[in-house]
């Protein structure tokens, strides 16, 4: 029998209080989408789900036909967020990234 009714010990560590002077935003808005890819460096990020590469291979073909420069990246595993180093690498080398989920 559920003796605890509606109230449970909630995970209490998911909300934290901001220790800063709160002058910077807690959330950042994504940059606006570019109108065109002309002259931009495009990253294709495979999150390592099966067959994501098939989708990205085709995207790479189509972009290359349009003279867009493409760089390929892959997360080590789809089950975890991209490692910080990979995020920094993409940020340094690309203007736009297309992250593909295929399954």
């Amino acid at each position, binding site marked *: 029998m559920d003796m605890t009714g*509606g109230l449970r*010990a909630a995970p*209490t560590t998911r*909300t*934290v209080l*901001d220790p800063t002077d709160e002058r910077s935003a807690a959330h950042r808005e994504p940059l606006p989408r570019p109108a065109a890819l002309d002259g931009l460096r495009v990253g294709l990020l495979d999150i390592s789900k099966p067959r994501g590469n098939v989708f990205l291979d085709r995207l790479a073909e189509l972009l290359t036909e349009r003279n867009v420069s493409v760089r390929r990246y892959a997360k080590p595993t789809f089950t975890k967020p991209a490692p*910080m180093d990979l995020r920094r690498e993409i940020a340094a080398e690309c203007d736009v990234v297309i992250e593909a989920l295929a399954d």
Partner: protein
Amino acid sequence: MPATGAGMSAAGELPRDGLVAVVKRDCPTCRLVEPVLAQLSGVLVFSQDDPRFPESVPNVRDDTDLDVSLALDIDTVPTLLRFAGGVEVERTVGWLRTAWEELTGLPGLGPDLPEHRPGCGSRTGDPDLADELLVRTHGDRLRSRRVELSALEDEIEALFDRGWSDGLPVVPPTPARVLRMLAGTSRAPDDLVGVVPPNLAEVTVEKVAVNAVLAGCRPEYLPVVLAAVHAACTDEFNAHGLLATTWGAGPAIVVNGPAARSIGMNSGGNALGQGNRANLTIGRALQLVIRNVGGGRPGEVDRAALGQPGKVGFCFAEDERGSPWEPLSVSRGVAPGSSAVTVFAAEGARGLADQISRTPESLARSLAAGLRGVAHPKLVTAFDATLVVCPEHARVFAQAGWSRAALEAALGEALLLQPADIERGADGIEEGVPAQLATRALPKFRPGGLMIVHAGGGAGMFSTVIGGWVGGPGGSQPVTTEVTAWT
């Protein structure tokens, strides 16, 4: 702490006149008194764990969210209460026939029951719910922005990612932890503690508490942290300059008085080292306030060429009981018996060995020789320093009856440096005092530029020098503040 806020709406369900009981099925005494409750006509029962219990009583209300239990400040179940004219006039806890009969005015209650059975703990005291209930009842005191961590983020990594760490893991400042930290002071969360450089951001008691949680402090350390932040935010201490300089010093704290002992600070063996939570986390909390609230980060406004390991946090207590002298805080104007913090600019600590001197004159000259190296052996009056005298050295001064002032005077005399030794070029070293200034003997330290503290373990004739930074009005001056105002 009394329940406030929560349950005010639920309290509206309470009768102006009549009987109220709070129970839970999990409690054997509550189950025992079920026939008695069924016998009390009109009793309104609030059930903490199972809204169907007790089945034989008609008026049962669901209090699984504990709003009514919190509003009534229930510690024990069963609790039987009597209301008259909209206010509680009487209550009894557990089962005691005479008490229930007196409260209800009804004789012969529960004839088959034993005379007395103690109750059980209310679910409001359930350790599994403590954090949630604390936040529900007191969370409205908190003003800091709430940041939600996503389900995929490791909470420790998430705090690194947000830039809130000094490089070591920090404790996630959950609302419950911050509320428990705030219980360490009677000051209101929104009280102003200081204006923190370099961004000149106002810091409240609550913001200091958030950073004290990050640092790993216990709530009883909070008054010391608050006093240290307050002292560090003064113009005299000049935390901005200390942060921005390319020199490697940072803020250090020495604690005096009963507060140091009551929170278990180390003033003995390894007092300047690792291993004591209060020493380590109080100093760290001050630095995290400067980092997070003030925005003072290495590579930004912190321009130290090298820094030093104590910039993570540097805090210790003076050994007053074993000291031949009055406490440092008393020498600096605080009443004896009062707790105080003194913040001062500090480089890393460096040992001064003298295992031979048994006369105060020799030992003073010996310590002076070590102090001469602060900043540079040929530079004078620019940099302050703190001398931590160990017990085996202090004993030599105590046996000779030397006061702290007498030691200061002897050190000052031994540190009057001759022009030939300090002018530029002397000893084949280009650094030194310009020739036009080196026309007479010059003191190594400005008046008041050398602080003497007593601390350390009982064995080892090894005192320690802690170099400082530029002293005086243009640099950083030690600042002493009483802790009492922040308790």
